């Protein structure tokens, strides 16, 4: 697939930057256009891979933002994007849309910019283009608190109704120990970038001479066509380089190797589904699924892929499971990516909604008594004292 990618807000921009990094490191060419949109001038200085002239500051003339963020306020984030919609539109002037199959908007849902401006950007893209617009969103962890949960619960509704599919990443599931503030979410962003790029870059070379079983962009788009919320599983296994190659030459027919490769592939796919998903979910609640096998083509064993596909049909309780290859001649590992599209049983989203409702009630209760409590604080019990001016 060929994508135009847009990172909105701090988290969205960082994820996009990691995607570009992973592409460069692995010789992929997925993101034909990359654009960062943010409300904080400082954060726009961070990316390493997004070109300087592809970073757009919005809200620098907005009274509540002025180029220094939106204070985590999703409504201000949305308002800023609405106000600067012309500027956002202009940033797509040089995007040659016939070059791309789809658009992808990445954003963190806990802050104010990604969660508020993100849906506005998506609305605009849907108006401008016929190509599908996908969302890639990060859900805040419980420990990030009630306000991010409220932002996320509200923003998720907007994202899911506006995008053609929403691929979710749950910070809570990926929260790790022993990380420093400097490392921050980098490791998580790298994990996410690996998954999304490996998945979507499959079938990126639409040349005719590649294997018949190669994944095609249209297969991926068909799987995503369900709408809703999706999750990605991933597993990789290092290839034992020269020794393996030597074995293959010796074996000639390569029958033995093929059998072990088949088992290996099925095992890899099972591992991808059963290990940590980007959004933990009940696999059987998926509407459609797709398997991409990425690595040196000589390791693709047809039997293995087919039996893995059948296994996933059972697991996901759907007959709509596609599988395909993503030949990467120079890869040093064999990777399996599984897309579970439109998963509907996701405990984490329920938790975020509960946390959000609590947060909203608390904020409302505080606002109701605010003026009264301040007045009570600054006046004496019998109201004998007057203000000086």
């Amino acid at each position: 697939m060929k994508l135009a990618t847009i990172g909105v807000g701090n988290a969205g921009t960082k994820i996009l930057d990691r995607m570009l990094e992973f592409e460069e490191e692995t010789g992929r060419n997925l993101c034909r256009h990359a654009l960062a949109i943010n409300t904080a001038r400082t954060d726009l200085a961070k990316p390493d891979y997004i070109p300087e002239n592809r970073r757009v500051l919005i809200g620098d003339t907005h009274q509540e933002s002025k180029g220094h963020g939106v204070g985590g306020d999703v409504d201000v984030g949305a308002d800023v994007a609405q106000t600067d919609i012309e500027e956002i539109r202009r940033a797509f002037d040089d995007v040659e849309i016939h070059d791309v199959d789809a658009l992808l908007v990445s954003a963190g849902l806990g802050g104010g910019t990604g969660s508020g401006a993100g849906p506005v950007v998506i609305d605009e893209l849907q108006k401008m283009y016929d190509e599908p617009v996908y969302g890639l969103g990060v859900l805040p962890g419980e420990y990030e608190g009630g306000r991010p949960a409220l932002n996320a619960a509200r923003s998720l509704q907007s994202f899911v109704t506006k995008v053609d599919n929403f691929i979710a990443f749950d910070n809570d599931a990926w929260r790790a120990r022993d990380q420093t503030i400097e490392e921050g979410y980098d490791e998580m962003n790298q994990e996410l970038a690996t998954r999304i790029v490996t998945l979507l870059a499959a079938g990126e070379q639409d040349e005719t001479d590649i294997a018949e079983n190669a994944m095609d962009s249209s297969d991926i788009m068909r799987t995503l066509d369900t709408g809703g919320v999706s999750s990605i599983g991933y597993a990789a296994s290092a290839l034992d380089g020269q020794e393996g190659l030597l074995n293959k030459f010796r074996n000639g027919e390569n029958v033995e190797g093929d059998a072990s490769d088949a088992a290996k592939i099925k095992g890899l796919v099972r591992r991808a589904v059963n290990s940590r998903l980007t959004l933990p979910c009940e696999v059987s609640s998926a509407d459609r699924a797709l398997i991409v096998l990425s690595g040196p083509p000589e390791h693709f064993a047809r039997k293995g892929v087919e039996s893995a596909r059948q296994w996933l049909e059972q697991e996901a309780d759907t007959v709509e499971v596609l599988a395909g290859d993503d030949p990467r001649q120079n890869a040093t590992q064999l990777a399996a990516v599984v897309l579970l599209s439109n998963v509907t049983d996701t405990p984490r989203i329920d938790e975020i909604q509960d946390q959000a409702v609590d947060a909203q009630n608390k904020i409302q209760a505080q606002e109701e008594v605010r003026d009264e409590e301040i007045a009570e604080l600054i006046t004496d019990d019998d109201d004998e004292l007057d203000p000086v001016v």
Partner: protein
Amino acid sequence: MKFALVGVGGAGGRIVDALRKVEQNSDRAFSNEQTLLFDTTQSAFEAYDHVPADRHVLIGDTHPDIRGTGLDGDIELGAEVAEEDTDEIYREFDKLATHSVHATLLVAGLGGGTGGGVGPVILEGLQSITDNPVYVLGILPADIEGDQQAYNAARSLQSYVDLADNVILFDNEEWADDGGDLDAQYPQLNIELVTRIIAVLGVGELEDAPIAETMLDPSDTMKALDSGGVSSLGYATTELDRPDSLLGKLLAMLRSNDTEQEITDAAKIKDLIQATVDSKLTLPCSVDSAERAMLSLSGPPDVCSRKGFETGRYWLEKETDTVQIWAGDEPHDASLIAASVLLSNVTDVPRIDEIQRRAVAYKREHVEDSDASDELSAETVDPSETAEQQTDSPDDAATRAGEPADDDGEETPSPTPDGDSAEASGGGDTAKTTADGDSAEPSADGERAVGSDTESRVGTEERIQDSE
């Protein structure tokens, strides 16, 4: 956040001067050199070394009651003088490039005549010239500073809270040593205060620092302060585990790969965040009465545990019982890790209640004898209550020696509505003498409350209300 500094009165001037001194000696630039100091006495400016002379503004120097010698604690007079000088004050505002900063911070002692009386008028002016928020850093007087200061503070606090976008308070009573000379303690108190103000409001303004992972933008600080009301600050630091000596570095190199050693563990960071709230706050308060909070962690980002930060932030959410929390980190190549917390719109503050009680007592005794007794006479008079009011303060008793009880033609006006002394009341001069004895109390002093007959008492009451 970058913020302009406007000091009003002695305490305000000293603190702005201290803020500028620290700023000049640090790698954190927060004021953009936007400063302005207002005072009613020329001599006050001599103490300031870090605010240029062209930013010293003397007001009220033409007013007949001051002539540059100060207000002697009279906030009513302070407010009056400032109102008269508004043209001059607005001209001075031109020196502030408020568009070059995100906000303005007005600093004032709430108990003084200038800080408490002139300050709110200047705040009103600042609000009218800028769209950016104007915050107040207010100093609450210690008990030993006297009851008049408590009275001034209770009244000016009302005006400040009404007019400011947020009022951050520092309580001298909490921070000063009992019995010590307060003047001698000011420098140390100011350092404690300045450290906290800079850590909270100056977050993100370190020069040449790497960009924070989770940055606190000025918009975040503004949101946290946007509740209005009264706020308190907490601050704590911890030493780094990282060996800083050359030997330490060598040892660290020898046990290389042992990165675990270098990460300041989660528990330590969480404890540090807890310490910001549990240690002495600038204004002691019930933490769970805060409406909003902001937390920042400043230190070398390669050694601070992110999990510890998240856990500490979550703890703060539970402790403050609010979800309105803004949290971020600030990379700082320092030998300490510092955590600071802003508790915004705290509403359970025993110290403010205490100041109000003292203020009411002071008012009943010194300011509105006539007013209070007027009400009493109009409604049901409880003689014992009136008597109590007159005798419960030795200070009061001394001032009023030979007052109403004497029927022998004593010329002092009576604070009680008894006809005898009303007859005996002298002119304005006599009344003023009495008022002066109460150390320049505001508003209902002799020059206004001429005589003590009922009519003029009503007039006084009206004037007090008019001045709102």
